[in-house]
C-alpha cells in the first residue's frame, strides 16, 4: 500500500504549481474566461510541452504511459488553479475512450494530435429528457450505403464550444433507455448538418448544444461495435468522474486555505473571528471533509483504470456522491464564513464555490451516484 505521490509525480505537481502562480493567477484567469475562446490557447500549448496532453496514452502512440493517479494529480491542480482549458474532455474523457476502445488507425491518427495540442474533443452523450442517464439516447443512427446518418440533439456538451471533433452517442437499434442499440461516432465539427450552439458555463468555461440533421459519417467513424457502445461510454464517464473528484479535492483544499486565512485576519468585536468557537468547529468540519474527500478521490483514481466494470462503477459512484456532498458543505461554509466577501465576484472564493457546485452537477450529481452505489448493496448479502 502507498498513499502518497511518487517523487516523479511530486515533481510534476511542483511544475504545475509554479505554472499556476506564474502564468495563471486569478486576474489572468478572469481575462482568459472573458476571451472569445473562454480559455488560454497559450496555456494549452504549454500543457502540450509539459507532456500533460499525452500523459495517459501508451508510449506506442506517443504517450507517456501514465495512469489515473497521474491524472488525479493534474486534476487536483486544475482545481487549485481553476484552470479553464478543455483538459478533462479532450485528454481524460475522449482521449481515454479512444485509447481504450477506438480502432487502431483512429488511435494512431488522433492520440498524437491530442498530445501535440492540435486536436480537442468533447463527449456528446446526454440528452435533455434523460438527465444523467447515458442510455437515454433518442438521437438516431441509420446505416445506408456504407455510411451512417445521425439525427437528433445533444445537450450541455462540456467543452463543446472549442472541440474539433465530438464523440456522439446515437441509437442504431432499440428504444430510448435501452442499454443495447447505442453506437458511438466520431463527428467532425464542420460536418454538414451539424449545428453547434455554444454558451458560457456558470464557472466561465464554454459548453454547447448540438443539433444533428442527417449528419453523414463513414464506417471508419464508428467506435466499438454497432449497438454496443454503452459500456465504452460508461467507462469513459467513470474515468471522467474520478478526475472530477480530484479537481473537487483541489478546490476544497483551496477553499479551506482561503477560509482559514480569512478567519485569522478578519477582525470583529476587536478580535480575529477565528477565535470564535462556532467558526472554529465549522472550520474543523471542513478539514475533516477535505481529508475524507481526498481518501475518496484516491479510491476513485485507483479504480479508474480497472477492467472490472462493476467494481469500478461502484467505487467511483461512491466517491462522486461523497465528494458532491462534502463539496457542498465546504463550498457553502466557505462562503458563509467569508460573510459579505463570500458573495462578491471580486474574491476567488465565489469562483471556487461555483466550480465546485457545478462539478457536483456534472456527469451525475450526489443523489444520482448515491442511488447507483446504493443499488449495489442489494446484491450479495448472505443470510443471517
Amino acid at each position, binding site marked *: 500500500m502507498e498513499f502518497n505521490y511518487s517523487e516523479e509525480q511530486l515533481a510534476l505537481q511542483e511544475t504545475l504549481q509554479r505554472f499556476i502562480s506564474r502564468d495563471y493567477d486569478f486576474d489572468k484567469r478572469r481575462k482568459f474566461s472573458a476571451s472569445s475562446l473562454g480559455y488560454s490557447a497559450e496555456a494549452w500549448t504549454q500543457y502540450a510541452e509539459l507532456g500533460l496532453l499525452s500523459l495517459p496514452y501508451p508510449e506506442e502512440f506517443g504517450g507517456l504511459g501514465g495512469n489515473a493517479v497521474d491524472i488525479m494529480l493534474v486534476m487536483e491542480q486544475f482545481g487549485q488553479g481553476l484552470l479553464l482549458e478543455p483538459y478533462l474532455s479532450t485528454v481524460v474523457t475522449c482521449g481515454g475512450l479512444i485509447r481504450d476502445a477506438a480502432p487502431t488507425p483512429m488511435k494512431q491518427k488522433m492520440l498524437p494530435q491530442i498530445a501535440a495540442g492540435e486536436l480537442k474533443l468533447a463527449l456528446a452523450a446526454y440528452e435533455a429528457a434523460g438527465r444523467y442517464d447515458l442510455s437515454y439516447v433518442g438521437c438516431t443512427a441509420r446505416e445506408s450505403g456504407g455510411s451512417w446518418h445521425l439525427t437528433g440533439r445533444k445537450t450541455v456538451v462540456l467543452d463543446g464550444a472549442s472541440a474539433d471533433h465530438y464523440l456522439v452517442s446515437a441509437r442504431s437499434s432499440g428504444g430510448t433507455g435501452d442499454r443495447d442499440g447505442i453506437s458511438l461516432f466520431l463527428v467532425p465539427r464542420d460536418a454538414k448538418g451539424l449545428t453547434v450552439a455554444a454558451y458560457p458555463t456558470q464557472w466561465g468555461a464554454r459548453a454547447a448544444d448540438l443539433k444533428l440533421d442527417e449528419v453523414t459519417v463513414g464506417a471508419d467513424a464508428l467506435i466499438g461495435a454497432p449497438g454496443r457502445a454503452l459500456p465504452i461510454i460508461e467507462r469513459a464517464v467513470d474515468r471522467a468522474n474520478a478526475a472530477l473528484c480530484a479537481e473537487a479535492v483541489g478546490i476544497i483544499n483551496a477553499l479551506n486555505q482561503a477560509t*482559514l486565512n480569512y478567519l485569522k485576519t478578519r477582525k470583529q468585536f476587536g478580535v480575529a473571528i477565528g477565535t470564535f468557537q462556532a467558526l472554529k468547529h465549522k472550520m474543523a468540519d471542513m478539514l475533516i471533509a477535505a481529508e475524507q474527500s*481526498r481518501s475518496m478521490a484516491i479510491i476513485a483514481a485507483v479504480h479508474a483504470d480497472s477492467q472490472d466494470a462493476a467494481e469500478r462503477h461502484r467505487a467511483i459512484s461512491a466517491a462522486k456522491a461523497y465528494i458532491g456532498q462534502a463539496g457542498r458543505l465546504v463550498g457553502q461554509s466557505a462562503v458563509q464564513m467569508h460573510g459579505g466577501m463570500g458573495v462578491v465576484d471580486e474574491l476567488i472564493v465565489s469562483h471556487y464555490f461555483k466550480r465546485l457546485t457545478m462539478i457536483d452537477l456534472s456527469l451525475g450529481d450526489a443523489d444520482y451516484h448515491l442511488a447507483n452505489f*446504493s443499488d449495489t448493496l442489494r446484491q450479495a448479502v448472505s443470510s443471517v
Partner: protein
Amino acid sequence: MDLKYNPEEEKFRTEVRAFFDAELPTDIRTKLQLGRRISKEDMVRWQKILFRKGWGAVNWPKRFGGTGWDIVQQHIFEEERADACAPPQNPFSLKMLAPVMQTFGNAAQQEYFLPRILSGDDWWCQGYSEPGSGSDLASLRTSAVRQGDHYIVNGQKTWNTMGQYADWIFCLVRTSSEARPQQGISFLLIDMKSPGITVRPIIMLDGEHEINDIFFDNVKVPVQNLIGEENKGWTYAKFLLTHERSGNAGIGACKRALKKLKEIASEQTSNGRPLIEDSRFRDRIAQVEMELMALEITNLRVLSATAKAQGTLGPEVSVLKIKGSEIIQQLAELKMHALGHDALPYVREALEMGWAGNPLLSSHYRSYAPPISGQYFNQRKTTIYAGSTEIQKNIISQMILGL
C-alpha cells in the same frame, strides 16, 4: 499510490484468519456473534490464547514482547478480529498504559508490569475523569501527598470502564496546586487491593454495569509507582490520549457492524419484501458505507504517514476519532431501525446465552435482536468518551489549523 495489499500481507491475512478459525473458542465467538454479554474470564482466556501465540500485544515493539507489526499488519489483524467475532483486548493496559510505560516508565516498572499485561495476569482500568473534571480534565482534584516512601491518595474517579474487574488502576493525581493546573499533575499506578479503595457501580442507560465510581480514602501508594517525574503527568496523559484516540477509528468493528446491518436489512421484511429493497432505507446504509470507505483510507493515511516519519501520533487522530465514533453510532442506529417494532422489547434474560424464549415473541423476534437497541443506547458514549467530539474539534482547530 496503491491501495492493494501485497502478497506478503495477503499471506499474513490468511494466517491470521486461520488462527482465529482454529483457536477462538466457539462459546466466546457465539456470544460475540449474537451480541451477548462477555465476561472478564472470556476476555482473559482469549488474551492468554493470543499470548501463547506471541500475539499478546499487536501494537507493541518486539523488545517488550509485542509483535512488532507494522500498521498495515495491525489493521489486517483488527479487521480479521472483528470479522471473526473475537473479543477486543483490554485497551486500557495494552493500548493506553503500555505506550506510556514504554516511553516514560523506568526499567523496573517495565520489567514488572508489561509481562503481566501481556499474559493477561493483570487487569487494568483508567482513572482519569472526576465528577468535576470531564472535558476540563486538567482541573482534576484527586490529591496525592508525599509522606516518606508513599503517596497518600484522596479523591474520586469516575467513568471507570470495567473497573470492577481491575487489579490495577492508572491515575492522574494532583501533586501540586501552585502553578497552572496542568503543571501539578502526576501519573500514578495504584493497586486496586489497597485499603481505602471503594468501587461503586454506575448503571448505564442500557441497564448494564460497565462503568464505576472509584473512591480513594487515604490510600497508600509506594513512590516507585510514579511514572516518570512528579508534576509531569499531563504530558504523559496527553500522549496516552492520542494513542487512545488512534484506536477509536475502529474500522474493523465498523466493517463488522456494516456487514451485520446488511444481513439484518435483508432478513427483516417490510410489506412482505426484504427491507433492503426499500431504497429509502438502503440509501441510509449506503451513506454510512461511503463514510466508512473514506475513513478506512484516511485512517491508513494518517497511520502510515506517522510510521514513515517515525514520529508519534499527532492531533490528526482527532479526525479519526470524530468520524469513527459517528459511524459506529450511525450503524447502531440503523441496525435498531431495521428491527422496526422488534426494537421495542427489553428482555433482560435474552441477553444471556441459552434463553428459551417466549413462544409468541420468538416467532418473529430473531436471535440477534435482543441486544440491538441497547447497543444503540450504549454507543452514544462513543462521541463523549476519550474527549468529546467538541473537544476533538477544539484540538483540530488549535493544533492543526492554528486557530
